């Protein structure tokens, strides 16, 4: 192996080491445990507490080994039946409020507004409010909250 060959290999080895380092830096920075969102069913309330008609806010507490989440959902009841809305604004993630006079969900952050069906009527949100699955069994209401599990 002459000097030139050696130098070539040396440079190759250097680029190998360099790219390995860069790849490991990126994969080090990028979080490992990004899982898909999973649906967890939790007990919310008794069926008799549901609104006859209109929107009501229900708080829940979710607990597992990893985390405790204390948040809320909106339940809507009308002639179309029951619907559960997640309160997280689809724009940048603030919590929305139900305004019973205007009959709208309002996000104070950038003025996003949604109608009773969760559809965007004004402001920047790109998507309607997320509808959560639910289940009523033996007079008990269960809702499926979505978490990165």
């Amino acid at each position, binding site marked *: 192996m002459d000097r030139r060959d050696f130098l070539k290999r040396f440079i190759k080895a250097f680029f190998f080491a360099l790219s390995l380092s860069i790849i490991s830096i990126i994969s080090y920075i990028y979080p490992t445990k990004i899982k898909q969102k999973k649906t967890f069913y939790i007990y919310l309330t008794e069926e008799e507490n549901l609104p006859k008609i209109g929107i009501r806010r229900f708080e829940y507490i979710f607990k597992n080994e990893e985390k405790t989440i204390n*948040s*809320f959902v909106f339940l809507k009841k009308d002639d179309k039946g029951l619907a559960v809305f997640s309160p997280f604004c689809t724009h*940048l993630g603030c*919590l929305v409020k139900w305004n019973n006079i205007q009959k709208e969900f309002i996000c*104070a952050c950038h*003025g996003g507004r949604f109608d009773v069906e969760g559809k*965007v009527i004004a*402001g*920047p*949100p790109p998507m309607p409010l997320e509808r959560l699955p639910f289940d009523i069994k033996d007079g008990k209401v269960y809702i499926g909250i979505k978490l990165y599990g």
Partner: protein
Amino acid sequence: MMDTFNKDKRVKKFYPDYLSEIIFTMLIAFELLIIFVLLYPPVVGRQIDLTKPFQPIPEWYFLWLFKLVGYFHGSFAFIGTVIIPLIFVLLLLFIPFIDHGRYGRIKAIIAGMIILIGFIGLTIFSIL
């Protein structure tokens, strides 16, 4: 007051003329800070709570961005969140190169004004 250091007004030295001015203003800056600290002591907010809708107000130097974001709806949101801020940043960084050629200074002034008026204007809108 600093002129006592140099009899001849037309000659200014880094030391002592300029340095003394700098140190003097640094001390004023420090005193100004202490006045604000004593007048407006820091507070701690409420604990994180996912049950109460909360409108986060950013620090004053991000109010412009906060306002800008609200103008772009739906799938155009990224124009307000990244594209326009990026343009601001690039304009700022490249001012020395914008000031080039015959109307260079005018172009630079326009670029500077876009940034400054954008910043101040949006900040004022967000407070209103």
